[in-house]
């Protein structure tokens, strides 16, 4: 037997998906161990071995691949527990990191302070050197200033160094000279060189990203080395891969060097999973949403490709590495309801978390949370939460809602609960709108793939708010990201800055730079055991009309790159500009410029297969549990709603809303507007009743 395992370490639970050779799989969840996440990870692996009736060692020897998503870097940055970091930078600009170009995100709030820099000012040391905008030396590097800075770093016990000089995107020589001395004099210190990590223009973006990489690097290095050691000692001989923020995976060795690529990797496997679950039902595009305890992640996927942005940030610190364009808002099962000064009901972003938890957990929480509303509205079963492992307290939930919200709103308790349910659904719909409407995309064109423990109870209402006709609740929805990890490919992004007018593009240089990046990708993937025939290359250009300051990233085909087909490239740009900003200047003949050239190299990995189930007919009665009173939002009243056992629903079973489908780790509320059909892979397809024909066809005919 060969196994593959996806592991997602979250704030509360560590999720696992164990995939078997025959394509079947099994879900595991254990409590996370934040002090050393590898402990929880090993616990999960031991449980699996036990279930396979194998000693851990024998089990691990049969594990081919482990794909692992970690938030150790994310947490280090959010909690300021990263490495003591020193910055070597050009004389005269050492405060760029802290200044953040002078933004105060809350303009009217005089108590809103700047974010603490990851390298304090006394560890941001100047190097006398200067390159001009074209990379030509204006002031040669004075190596004595490098030595002086390193003296200070050594004296202060700096654990990581970042090197970022002005205009180094155009000439990396000075940075490399400085880096050489750092390597010699501080051999064990983690080092990031900006022109290696991110050779692209915009100083603040580069310095911030370089420092983030150094700040989080030593912690990731320590963690990965200890994890690899633990796994090896336990008998693991297969391949370990690490999830990145861009939706791909890398080897632990590459992740160690480029720790920044893992900083927002938490939700990054979700979109990958979304693609898989929708494509098997014949969709090319989808929206994925993941509603956990405190946060809600939404992402858009077009042509089976998640959208990528280079404009991300973490904790108000700029991170200019490509990452999946995922919007995260503070909405989850723990979101707390409150009344603002204008008397309006609000939900979140404050969350009760797992401690003190929603009032119904009965472990100290007194404020009304989303889970409390879900309980009193009948969407959750007090005795079957987490498969019955945790009993929920209805009275505590009702009391919290009544005291903190209903009395102030002059509503009765249930009306207030219904209000909470509505408001949080609207908030989440706004998050979905961020990734669709805001980008000019119509959410109604996309099936909504729903994940996370709390997601399926809210999915229909989010979809209704946005008029989305189809919802897909995957079989593995509660451990969506762990499943997504097993479906991820190796992925590397490369960039070169080449500012030039499209018409003056030098063909030799253009093709040479692209080829150089492609070769680099081939080589990096070769080191990760991906043979050339499994490598795919994706080319794009950051383009703009002349004199514009910002670019649009335009995908271009490999054929257009090497055939130097500038007309096609220009046309793609005009089209995209029009879509995003409401106009193009194609007719005016305004010249086009390029700024950055990008290549993404993807090394395809083996994916788990899906097993088709046997058609079991429409009748769901074999899974019927009982009737329960639940609130129907469109009718604004309670009614008896049938409850089904999700584990017993089979391919072809059809459940008309309103209905509740319970599973061990999640529960789905299907509103009256929707129906559910189980697809051949055991996932739930939910669709507007009046469009049933259209979607039922997809499930049964293909």
């Amino acid at each position: 037997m060969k196994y593959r395992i996806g592991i997602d370490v979250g704030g509360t639970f560590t999720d696992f998906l164990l995939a078997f050779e025959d394509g079947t799989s099994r879900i595991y969840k254990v409590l996370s161990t934040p002090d050393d996440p590898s402990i929880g990870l090993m616990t999960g692996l031991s449980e699996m071995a036990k279930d396979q009736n194998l000693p851990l060692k024998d089990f691990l020897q049969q594990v081919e691949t482990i794909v692992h998503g970690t938030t150790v870097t994310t947490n280090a940055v959010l909690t300021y527990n990263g490495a003591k970091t020193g910055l070597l930078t050009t004389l005269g600009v050492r405060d760029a990191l802290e200044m953040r170009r002078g933004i105060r995100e809350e303009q009217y709030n005089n108590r809103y302070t700047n974010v603490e820099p990851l390298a304090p000012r006394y560890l941001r040391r100047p190097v006398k050197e200067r390159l001009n905008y074209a990379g030509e030396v204006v002031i040669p590097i004075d190596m004595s200033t490098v030595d002086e800075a390193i003296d200070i770093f050594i004296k202060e016990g700096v654990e990581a160094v970042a090197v970022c000089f002005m205009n180094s995107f155009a000439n990396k020589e000075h940075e490399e000279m400085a880096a050489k001395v750092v390597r010699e004099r501080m051999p064990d210190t983690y080092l990031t060189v900006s022109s290696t990590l991110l050779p692209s223009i915009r100083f603040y973006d580069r310095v911030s990203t370089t420092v983030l990489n150094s700040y989080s690097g030593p912690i990731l290095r320590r963690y990965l080395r200890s994890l690899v050691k633990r796994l090896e000692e336990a008998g693991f001989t297969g391949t370990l891969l690490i999830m990145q923020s861009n939706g791909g995976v890398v080897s632990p060795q590459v992740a160690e060097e480029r720790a920044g690529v893992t900083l927002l990797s938490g939700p990054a496997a979700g979109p990958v999973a979304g693609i898989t679950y929708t494509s098997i039902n014949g969709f090319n595009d989808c929206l994925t949403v993941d509603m956990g305890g405190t946060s809600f992640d939404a992402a858009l996927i077009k042509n089976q490709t998640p959208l990528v942005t280079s404009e991300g940030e973490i904790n108000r610190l700029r991170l200019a590495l490509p990452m999946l364009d995922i919007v995260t808002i503070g909405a989850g099962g723990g979101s707390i309801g409150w009344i603002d000064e204008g008397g309006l009901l609000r939900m979140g972003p404050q969350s009760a978390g797992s401690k003190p938890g929603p009032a119904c957990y009965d472990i100290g929480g007194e404020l009304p949370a989303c889970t409390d509303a879900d309980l009193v509205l009948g969407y959750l079963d007090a005795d079957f939460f987490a498969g019955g492992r945790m009993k929920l307290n209805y009275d505590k939930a009702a009391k919290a809602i009544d005291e903190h919200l209903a009395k102030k709103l002059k509503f009765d308790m249930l009306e207030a609960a219904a209000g909470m349910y509505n408001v949080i659904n609207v908030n989440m719909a706004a998050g979905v709108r961020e990734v669709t409407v805001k980008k000019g995309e119509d959410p109604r064109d996309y099936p909504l793939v729903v994940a996370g423990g709390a997601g399926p109870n809210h999915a229909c209402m989010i979809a209704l708010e946005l008029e989305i006709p189809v919802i897909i609740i995957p079989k593995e929805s509660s451990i969506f990201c762990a499943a997504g990890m097993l479906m991820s490919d190796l992925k590397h992004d490369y960039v070169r800055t080449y500012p030039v007018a499209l018409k003056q593009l030098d063909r030799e240089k253009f093709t040479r730079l692209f080829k150089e990046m492609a070769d680099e990708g081939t080589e990096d993937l070769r080191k990760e055991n991906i043979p050339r025939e499994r490598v795919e290359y994706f080319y794009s250009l950051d383009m703009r009309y002349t004199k514009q300051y910002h670019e649009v990233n335009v995908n271009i085909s490999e054929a257009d790159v090497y055939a130097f087909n500038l007309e096609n490239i220009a046309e793609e740009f005009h089209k995209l500009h029009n879509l995003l900003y409401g106009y193009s200047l194609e007719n005016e003949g305004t010249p086009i410029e390029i700024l950055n050239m990008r290549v993404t190299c993807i090394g395809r990995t083996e994916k788990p297969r899906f097993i088709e189930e046997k058609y079991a007919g429409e009748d769901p009665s074999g899974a019927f549990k009982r009737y329960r009173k639940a609130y129907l939002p469109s009718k604004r009243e309670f009614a008896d709603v049938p409850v089904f056992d999700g584990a017993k629903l089979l391919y072809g079973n059809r459940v008309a809303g309103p209905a509740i489908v319970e599973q061990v780790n999640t529960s789905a509320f299907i509103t009256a507007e929707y129906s559910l059909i189980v697809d051949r892979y055991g996932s739930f397809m939910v669709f507007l009743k009046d469009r049933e024909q259209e979607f039922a066809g997809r499930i049964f005919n293909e």
Partner: protein
Amino acid sequence: MSKEMEVINGVKIDKILVSVLQRRFKSITQEMSHAITRTTRSPILCEAKDFVTGLYDGKGKMLEQTENLPILSFSLGPVCEYIVNYFGEEIYPGDVIFHNDVFSMGNQNNDVAVYKPIFFDGKLVAWSACKGHQADIGGAVAGGYNPNATEVWQEALRIPPVKVYEKGKLRKDVWDLIFANIRYDIVREDLTAQIGSCTLAERRMIDLVSKYGLAVFEAHKEYLYNSTELMMKAEIRTIPKGVYTGESTVYYDGRNPGSTYKIRTKITVNDEDITFDFSETDAQTSGFVNGTFTSSASAVILTFLQMVNPDIPHNDGMSRPIKMIIPEGTILNASYPAATTFGNHLCPATADAIIRALAPVIPERVTAGWNNLLCGLVNGIDPRKHAPFVDIIFLGMKGGSGGTYGFDGYDHIGMIDASGGVLAQDYEMFEQQDPHLLYKHEYLIDSAGAGQWRGGLGVETEFSLDGEKMNVITFGDGDVEPAFGVFGGKEGTLNIIELRYPDGKVHVPLSKELVYNVPKGTIWYQQAGGGGGYGDPKLRPVEKVLKDVKNEVVSVEKAREDYGVVIDPETLTVDKKATAELRAARQ
């Protein structure tokens, strides 16, 4: 079901929908802002974000805004109402209207607004609009800011509301007339980008009204206004009732060196409204240091908004309880046909007068004085591209804000008019786009006014001017009077600009000056001062003082003199005994 259902015009109010609409308006204005940032050419717009976007109802009342630069923000609504009255019945789907005229509610000549009416079922239901500071607007001086101007025509092309598109069709003659009077092509391209953003908003609003229906939209909009008004009234009730006065000084009118003008405010706080009366303010100047009604009103609103709950939505209801008396003929509301380009920059002085009036009343909600703006603009030819360039030196002008109760001032934030909404250029983009080489842009040591909560740090900037046929224009203040401290806090530092010519001579321009023919290779040197401190510096925790010394933003000398903290310059350790003695002696 015991609740009383509220009904407006026969429509039952769904409070949830009110929240939904408010959020949606906001996200539409943010999307407009994003589009303008991504598409405009002038670094003033795309790097610094010197613009604002907004949505207004069919009558021109504010629905929501994204206010990158608040001083522009509270002009869009009044102009919208003006346009609604001006065109009356002759407003059609597909119209696009330009406006900048300061004598019909515009705030500044360079700030050109684009308006697009939004129709649903043949009815005018809303407007999308945006206003941005253009790289040029005609007049005597490239880039605007003509300190020699005495009349509006010397400053700018006046655009009272004019349709550049009617019913979706470009009025080519009008379009060409406007751009025949503006120096740079990028202005045409930037206004095209602004129109694009209004088109995006129009699409979103039509979708939204179609979804809920017009009657529901209208009723819920009214409810939103009313609930916001209640929030603002609740805030006003937290201010002790009474009449309070404050004043500040404006230095140099651009024509008479040494001249000063007073801004005087009388603030009356009642139960549910607040009035800002500037009747005692000095008369207008003969030059361009004059405000317009809306630039001054914006200054009042943005200052007051910083003293109340920052979560109040920005719509018509927010401003209802705020009354203003700004008589025509004063420096804050100059009579036709005065020059007024400087008007936005009277905001710091206006804010100072308001802060001084309210500091004794709501001491925990005011800040100490902010660094006043002193800014510069450079135009000329970029020899690398053989093309003209013009840029406002945003990165040089960002001083510190004043400290407040419990919090230090914000370092390198810049003028209170923007409150951190306007950004410094990215250094590498600055050097790509303009012929400059940046030598220094760092916090200025000892610039922050000392205090229990110190002022924000100022900034020192140095770069070379490597263009040809260059002119420099300075505009601002703060080179005579620094940001003031409050409750025992000390003042910040002054603003300074120097032009260090290649021949060794140094020219220190006045705070409003047009310097012609600046030679290639001149060094621009600038200090933007720090903000004022709040509270007695001796009460500042020693470890905070030590941290600032270690970070080289407060000197060992200043630590001793201002804060009474004795630090060994070699070891950077605190001499506890000497510190205790020094602090005790100063009590």
